[in-house]
């Protein structure tokens, strides 16, 4: 009951937020929600033990796909968003195929290199990707007379997508499929011997998470109106890693908390200007060396302590 109330409160909060905060913060919130989709989809692959360093590239695949479809073919938003996600999922399958023979660190590095391969295609081909300068003039969205060029309508559109994507990812996490992925991470040999097709599940996790990263890319491209290969390079990837590491991947909520906390820190640290990456680098090191489970593990520790307290202090009803 408490849980539903909390969820309702968060939803209401998000719904009335644009009325309360200024336009600048509405733009920040749009980015924030897109990043939530990105980080949450990233967690899906990490649950089976595969940390991918190519995840932002799949956001790029969605962004480029939508840019091409909207700009050159004049596709409507519903078409670009679906095809953007699908394109990411399909390219994700192609990328993960050679990686299935690797594990852990090899997977990490291999995904990094193959992600670079995809990204370099955009750098290499001026037609149609615009080369290193990328693509500009991506049309904004128009749906039944609402102009989504304005920040507030776009905010609600992104909110809708964020709720849908997170809900689906949450369902997957709790489902048998989500459990199978965690089982693969915990004991691959045992998983195999009880009939789990490990390669198939890893490929599926990769592809599905690429799909959602693609959706995030679609939403990003329509908002920015211009994209270039640098948006999706290893630097961006390291920021995604920082969010996820700070939040922790132990639970569904970890990466979401990570994005929220680190975007707040980023805003607060604006006066540091060019010194900011140093702060982020430092935070990354501190978390990995001192709190490898992230904020999420800290919270579950606190919760455990509280539980013990109540268990000791009160009788069971």
């Amino acid at each position, binding site marked *: 009951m408490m849980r539903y109330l909390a969820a309702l409160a968060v939803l209401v909060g998000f719904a009335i937020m644009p009325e309360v905060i200024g336009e600048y913060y509405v733009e920040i919130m749009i980015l924030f929600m897109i990043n939530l989709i990105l980080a949450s989809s990233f967690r899906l692959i990490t649950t089976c033990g595969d940390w991918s360093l190519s995840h932002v590239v799949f956001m790029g695949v969605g962004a480029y796909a939508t840019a091409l479809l909207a700009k050159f073919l004049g596709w409507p938003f519903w078409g670009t968003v679906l095809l953007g996600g699908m394109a990411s999922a399909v390219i994700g399958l192609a990328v993960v195929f050679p990686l299935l023979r690797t594990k852990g660190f090899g997977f990490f590095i*291999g995904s990094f290199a193959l992600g670079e391969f995809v990204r370099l295609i955009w750098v290499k081909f001026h037609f149609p990707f615009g080369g290193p300068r990328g693509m500009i003039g991506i049309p904004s969205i128009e749906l039944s007379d609402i102009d989504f060029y304005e920040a507030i309508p776009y905010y609600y559109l992104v909110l809708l997508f964020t709720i849908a994507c997170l809900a689906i990812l949450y369902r997957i996490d709790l489902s048998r499929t989500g459990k199978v992925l965690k089982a693969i991470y915990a004991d691959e040999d045992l998983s195999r011997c009880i009939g789990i097709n490990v390669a198939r599940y890893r490929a599926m996790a990769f592809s599905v998470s690429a799909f959602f990263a693609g959706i995030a890319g679609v939403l990003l491209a329509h908002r920015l109106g211009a994209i270039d290969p640098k948006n999706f390079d290893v630097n961006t990837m390291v920021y995604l890693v*920082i969010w996820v590491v700070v939040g922790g991947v132990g639970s569904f909520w970890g990466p979401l908390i990570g994005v929220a906390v680190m975007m707040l820190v980023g805003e607060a640290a604006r006066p540091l200007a*060019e010194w900011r*990456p140093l702060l982020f*680098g430092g935070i*990354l090191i501190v978390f990995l060396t001192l709190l490898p489970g992230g904020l999420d593990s800290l919270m579950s520790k606190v919760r455990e302590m509280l539980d013990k307290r109540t268990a000791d202090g009160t009788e069971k009803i």
Partner: protein
Amino acid sequence: MDWPTFIQSISNAVILGSIYATVAVGLALAFGVMQMANFAHGEFFMAGAYVVYVFYALGGMPFPAAVISAFPVVAALGVVTERFVFRPTRGNVLAGFMATAGVAFILQVIVGQVWGVGLMRSVPTPYMGAASILGAQVSWQRLIILPSTLVMVGGLWFFLHRVKLGKALRACAQDVEAASLQGININKITALSMAISGGFAGVAGALMAPINAVTPYMGHSIIVTAFIVVIVGGMASIEGSILAAFILGFIHTFVTTLFDAVLATMAGVAFMAIILVVKPTGLLGRVRM
């Protein structure tokens, strides 16, 4: 491709392979001991180039002395990284690797803030002119890389096989537990291997300083290649990474000459993907990644 271009490309490939080898050997060495995977290795390379920029271009030190001093300076960075990043994350390769991405950020910011982010720092060429090899012109500046690599890799081989401390390092790479039972101080060895690893990256960067664009972000381009080399060679295999370095040197040079640099990088990545599918242990590696 005409004959002079061909010879030119061959010599370029060998020299590029030498640089890759110097960088990748350090990476493989550190990975071999306690699985330290250094994401900041490219920034160590960058730091080496800045040592030459500061000591030689700004400070007026002779070029060879500046290159040599890159070794201890960057080795020190390696030791610090080992102490504050790899040691606390020991046993978790990914954590160490991601944490060194933080180190990379920190080094980029510091170098950028001290010496400027914008335009590249120019390092004047200390050795003008070019040697004529079978009708091709190879600048002296590039040519000195070859003997430097030979000396460094040879020195490393001598150290690992003939010096007691080096043998201890190899013992550690083979079996940490057995090594520590023999009384080898593991922390000392991991620090040492990061020092050597850093020193190698530093010298490679120093040698490339007059050739490459010296910027705080120059590590990006080398780190992708270095990791491809190490994966192709077989993680933790020094011999494998040397072999793979020259293969990549040839792929990059020839594809660049025939087509362009972007395609060359893509070819390198594609080559790695093929190796991963066909032989996941890498060319000379034993451990499957």
